[in-house]
């Protein structure tokens, strides 16, 4: 055992928290080194002196003063009630943590779905709302279809006329070889 190991074990020896083998080794070291025995003896004496430091007592009016402070606390409603705890947190702290939680969920959703287009969603919602409004007007669904069909027929007839014109034109146009 060296000096450092000996000093590390002083408190354990004094508090009787040392194994038997270590105790023997410790006491052998003390026997071989008288100054170390004096050190241990001095530390033991200091502990006794510390235990004998005069102990103060509180004033006789301590409990009365405390009671008046407690009465002030109980009569002041602004101080609140310690029973209002939400999962161990005060209401203010609980609402702050809840806000942080919501912000965390929102940011996580943004990170997971970066392509999510809020504008498209809102526009599609507007279109849907417009469609539903149309359906809810006085025109019934059949009228809508009929008018659309009429439009289609008109377009078809126009395209046929255009085709005939094209045929006529082809007789008139001759491609010239270079």
């Amino acid at each position, binding site marked *: 055992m060296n000096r450092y190991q000996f*000093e*590390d074990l*002083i*408190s*354990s020896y004094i508090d009787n928290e040392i194994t038997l083998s270590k105790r023997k080794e410790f006491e052998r070291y003390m026997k071989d080194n008288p100054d170390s025995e004096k*050190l241990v003896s*001095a*530390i033991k004496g*200091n*502990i006794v*002196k*510390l*235990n004998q*430091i*005069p*102990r*103060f*007592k*509180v*004033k*006789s*009016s*301590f*409990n009365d*003063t*405390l009671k008046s*402070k*407690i009465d002030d*606390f109980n009569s002041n409603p602004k*101080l609140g009630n*310690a*029973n209002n*705890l939400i999962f*161990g947190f005060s209401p203010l702290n609980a609402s702050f943590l809840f806000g942080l939680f919501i912000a965390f969920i929102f940011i996580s959703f943004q990170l997971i779905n970066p392509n999510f287009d809020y504008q498209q969603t809102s526009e599609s919602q507007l279109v849907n709302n417009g469609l539903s409004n149309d359906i809810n007007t006085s025109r019934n669904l059949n009228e809508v279809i009929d008018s659309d069909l009429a439009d289609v027929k008109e377009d078809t007839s126009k395209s046929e006329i255009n085709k005939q014109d094209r045929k006529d034109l082809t007789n008139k146009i001759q491609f010239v070889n270079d």
Partner: protein
Amino acid sequence: MPLDKKSEFIFTDEELISRFQNGDERAYVELVNRYKDRLLNFVFQFLGDIEQAEDVVQDTMLRLYEKKHYYKEIAKFSTWIYTIARNLANTELRKRKRRKTTYLSQLSKERQFEIPAIQEDVDQSLQNEFINDRIQSAINNLPEHFKVVIILRDIQELSYEEISNIVEVPLGTIKSRINRARIQLQAELLDLK
């Protein structure tokens, strides 16, 4: 079953705080009586002023009353209340540094001391007073982390586990720190026999 005066003393601190949390204010009074003197001596070691120390102990007991539901039976009650007292003492020390004022210890006529049963002669009592002053001065000269553990172990006589929980440092570190603190204290008191 009513809690009569005699039976209050058989409850542990943890049982008393549990009763207090359920609305029994007599349990609170018992806790105050058990801890007021101990906390006074503990806080005095940090502040050096007995009047201020008593104010801090008052605040500690008031905090105990206000925040009784904050105590959970994970740690011992003594750990909890000592931690509150220590935090309030540190707050007072910080305020004192900002104010840059020096407080002198004042002995109030109302204050009582624990007096030994056997009356000592004048020389012996003077010598004891000198020794106590020297020890107090040596403790104050220790680094803060040594001072705290010496006070809690050798003056307040708390266990290593309680000290570890109050100081929030591992048990092995506490044992090592106490050992080093005792050796350093002895170095400060070399001239004292």
